């Protein structure tokens, strides 16, 4: 939460006393997520969207694709942009305006998990590859998808994928909430070819489902998915994002405390055990919609 957030000494002591016994204030196990509820595709103005509730934390994600200029050093690659808006609505301690460090850190960690897992093949996101699509070239292993008219989109452009996360209730663990919301929104994203005269819309296929797992260290205890108070009391935080094979694609240590190498190892093991379950949960909720 913001630097202004405080927690009463009595609550802090209580949380730490519980942690010393390996217990948590809401009775969860150390390796247990809060209830996860995801809705897909509820924002009509976005090309892909989700609303994710992780306990009381609530995040909306909208994905939009627009033709844009590529980076000069990678002229045929799509561009991925992730931003997190931690709006004042989300918590009484948040002021309005001013970009917040916390939001930027979350956005960058979410971005890394998606980018490095290569669940999106950015090389297939140049606009000319949409046009090649009509020549029978396969995209994401799929056959061509009908006629492509020469639209009003000039040569040399690529798709810019905007992942915009809107945190409307901050009750801890924005890292996992935002990361899972972004992946969920990408899962139901459509490439809006028709809108730009580039042929038929196609689903933006993901080649894997990166799963983010965030832990905090309180005393000697390590807990998954910190709640609102745990996040304020914790000494250190570690986010681990895993791909389908259980390999590590992104990590971030946070907060002012320290964490041991042996603890990192332990947390990665835990994450490897948990990620497939979280992934199943996500895919199940996706299939239900």
């Amino acid at each position: 939460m913001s630097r202004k957030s405080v927690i009463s000494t009595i609550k802090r002591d209580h949380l730490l006393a519980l942690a010393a016994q390996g217990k948590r204030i809401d009775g969860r196990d150390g390796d247990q997520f809060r209830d996860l509820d995801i809705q897909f595709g509820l924002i009509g103005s976005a090309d892909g969207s989700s609303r994710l509730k992780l306990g009381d934390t609530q995040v909306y994600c909208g994905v939009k694709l627009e033709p844009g200029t590529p980076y000069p050093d990678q002229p045929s690659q799509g561009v991925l942009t992730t931003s997190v808006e931690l709006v004042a609505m989300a918590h009484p301690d948040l002021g309005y305006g001013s970009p917040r460090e916390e939001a930027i850190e979350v956005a960058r960690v979410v971005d890394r998990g998606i980018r490095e897992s290569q669940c999106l093949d950015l090389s297939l996101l140049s606009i000319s590859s949409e046009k090649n699509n009509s020549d029978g070239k396969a995209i994401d292993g799929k056959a061509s998808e009908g006629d492509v008219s020469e639209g009003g989109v000039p040569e040399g452009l690529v798709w810019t994928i905007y992942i915009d996360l809107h945190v409307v209730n901050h009750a801890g663990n924005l890292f996992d909430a935002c990361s899972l919301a972004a992946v969920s929104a990408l899962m139901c994203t459509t490439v809006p070819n028709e809108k730009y005269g580039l042929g038929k819309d196609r689903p933006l296929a993901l080649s894997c489902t990166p799963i983010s797992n965030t832990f905090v260290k309180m005393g000697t205890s390590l807990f998954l998915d910190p709640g609102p108070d745990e996040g304020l009391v914790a000494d250190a935080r570690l986010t681990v994002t895993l791909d389908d094979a259980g390999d590590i694609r992104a990590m971030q240590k946070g907060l002012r405390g320290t964490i041991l190498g042996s603890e990192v190892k332990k947390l990665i093991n835990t994450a490897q055990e948990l990620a497939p379950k979280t992934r199943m949960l996500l895919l199940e909720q996706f299939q239900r919609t």
Partner: protein
Amino acid sequence: MQKKDSVILMDENGKRRDGRAPGDLRPIHIEANVLSNASGSCYLEWGGNKLLVAVHGPREAQPRHLQDQTKAIIQCRYNMAAFSVGERKRPGPDRRSTEISKVLSEALDAAVFTQRFPRATIDVYIEVLEASAGTRCAGLTAASVALADAGIPMRDMVAAVAAGKVGDTVVLDLDKEEDNHGTADLPMAILPRTGEIVLLQMDGHLTADELDRAQTMAIEGCLEINRQQVEALKKCYQSDDNGADNAGYADSDGGDADTAGYDDSDDGATDNAGSDDSDGGDADNAGSADVDADNAGSDDSDDDDADNNEHEADEKIDDDPQVTETFGSGGLDPNVSLFDEKEGDE
């Protein structure tokens, strides 16, 4: 009147693109109390609009130069999510949202008993998640529900809707196409009980007679919207079995208590009848106690004046100190008559 109708907005039977008659509203869905961190909140779907409103406060206004020694300030922030419109909107405030924030703050200020909370701010955050014409009216409508959900005393719940003109017809609640291709747009908000106008904007081209018809139509629309606002609040407390989520008034017997704040035109009158003798001064005391501390409930019992009023005011509340307590922490003091407050105002 020049027609920009490359799009057909009205068929030969007088039906609109989506089958509505000129005076019909788009479907509205209102849900109160949806965010755990807010004092009050509301989710609203209205046609293709989806938005969330959270109220934080009343709380001390910071920085201090913003404070008004005589009353609370209402700070409304209207913000659109990047994905809420066709082409991605760059995040952050622009001139349009700044103007809307200002007129919405002023509209809500007219409804809230701000003098109850000197030096305080009541922050109203409107986040538009999907926009499809009429978001300022939708935002205002939802903001009133969120304020009521926060237990903030108001003269009435503001209801808002736009009327306008499409082709040659005066219509209610323009959708996106009608807004883009219509000839006039008239967003309007009223206090439904008195019909006082708290927000009025217009652009386009209307004759005086058409304006008259549009206003009448908007007022009727607002009255219908107000009914749905009240229903949404009632439903919120009826469906809540254990009340655990309702921070402010957790275990108070919801129905009566919460209705008092906004729907006192009929049943509230009896509750308030006893407190005729409470004057402006008492009201202010109660107000500042609420702002200063969470334990306003116990403050009240220390204060002789307030306590006396309490006894005279309402036997039911007197029977159950718990109720007073929960009211106090919710920021709404049942001891002060809303009617008296209003008279004092005029």
